[in-house]
């Protein structure tokens, strides 16, 4: 049974992608990521703390690029220009690695994406040879435009980043899923395992999450829960669920051979 997630021509066994922010320390990050089974992990790009780094381990020593596919993001960028600059730095930092996560935010309270800036950044990045996985709103038309721009995956939000509110508009996601020819991953808003399972049961190709694992009471255990949920949801989608029959029950046990009946 070979069911791989293929992004930009590369196949992955795990359909769960995880962020590396908000953990207590690097050890907890490492253990939770391991438990999640994720092969693709997102990182942010930030100014180095000059004079405060001597002897400190770095994230990429804890999560080595030889073992994980590192997905640098543009979290915190509010313009296409800043996002593009950030990812050019990331590509240099990661020795020419071109798979990236683009997100251009529009508002500090909601962290909702600024889609015009996101589209502008996507065009520039694709032209420069980046393989762009893009965080976006769940608007099917914008998702299609991003796909036509050459993004290798579209990643609509399920709900606001870090909100844990789950999938608020499965119908929009379904439209995107029905039409997209590139992988569709839910990015942002997952709160617990059932949310991840629902995303996969809708037919999503994968799920990207951070806070749901990092801010669980036991992040390592939640990492494992999310792994199982994504696998279960995927299997259920592949299996094809039974039809819903809201007005008609159907007994699971035989209706013949009941005792006390006259023949």
């Amino acid at each position, binding site marked *: 049974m070979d069911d791989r997630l293929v992004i930009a021509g590369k196949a992955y066994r795990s359909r769960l992608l995880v*962020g*590396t*922010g*908000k*953990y207590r320390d690097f050890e907890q*990050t490492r253990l939770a990521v391991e438990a999640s089974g994720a092969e693709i992990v*997102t*990182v*942010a*790009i*930030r*100014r*180095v703390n*000059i*004079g405060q*780094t*001597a002897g400190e381990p*770095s*994230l*990429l020593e804890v999560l080595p690029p030889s073992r994980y596919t*590192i997905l*640098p*993001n543009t*979290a915190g960028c509010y313009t296409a220009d800043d996002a593009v*600059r*950030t990812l*050019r*730095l*990331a590509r*240099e*930092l*990661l020795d020419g690695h071109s798979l990236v996560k683009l997100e251009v935010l529009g508002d500090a309270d909601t962290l909702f994406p600024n889609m015009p800036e996101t589209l502008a950044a996507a065009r520039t990045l694709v032209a420069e040879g980046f393989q762009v996985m893009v965080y976006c709103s769940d608007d099917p038309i914008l998702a299609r435009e991003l796909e036509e721009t050459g993004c290798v995956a579209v990643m609509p939000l399920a709900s606001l*980043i*870090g909100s844990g509110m789950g999938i608020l508009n499965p119908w929009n996601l379904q439209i995107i899923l029905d039409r997209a020819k590139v992988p569709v991953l839910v990015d942002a808003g997952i709160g617990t395992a059932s949310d991840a399972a629902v995303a996969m049961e809708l037919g999503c190709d994968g799920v*990207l*999450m*951070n*806070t749901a694992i990092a801010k669980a009471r036991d992040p390592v255990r939640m990492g494992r829960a999310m792994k199982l949920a994504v696998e279960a949801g995927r299997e259920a989608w592949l299996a094809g669920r039974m039809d819903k029959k809201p007005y008609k029950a159907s007994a699971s046990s035989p209706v013949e051979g009941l005792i006390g009946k006259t023949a």
Partner: protein
Amino acid sequence: MELMLRINGAERRFEPPLTVAGLVGRLGVEGKRVAIERNGEIVPRSRYGDVLLADGDRLEVVVAVGGG
């Protein structure tokens, strides 16, 4: 004549001449996985030894950190 560089938004002064490789050593990030942008352009690691810094250069020195 001192060399004024704006590194990660803060002014710092150095004795010229200074290459990017020299700066990396002075900042204590030698051997660390960093990337550097100079006046908006990436400086490839292979060129650290060649690129001489000029007074007023704006530099961004970045690393990967935890993020979602």
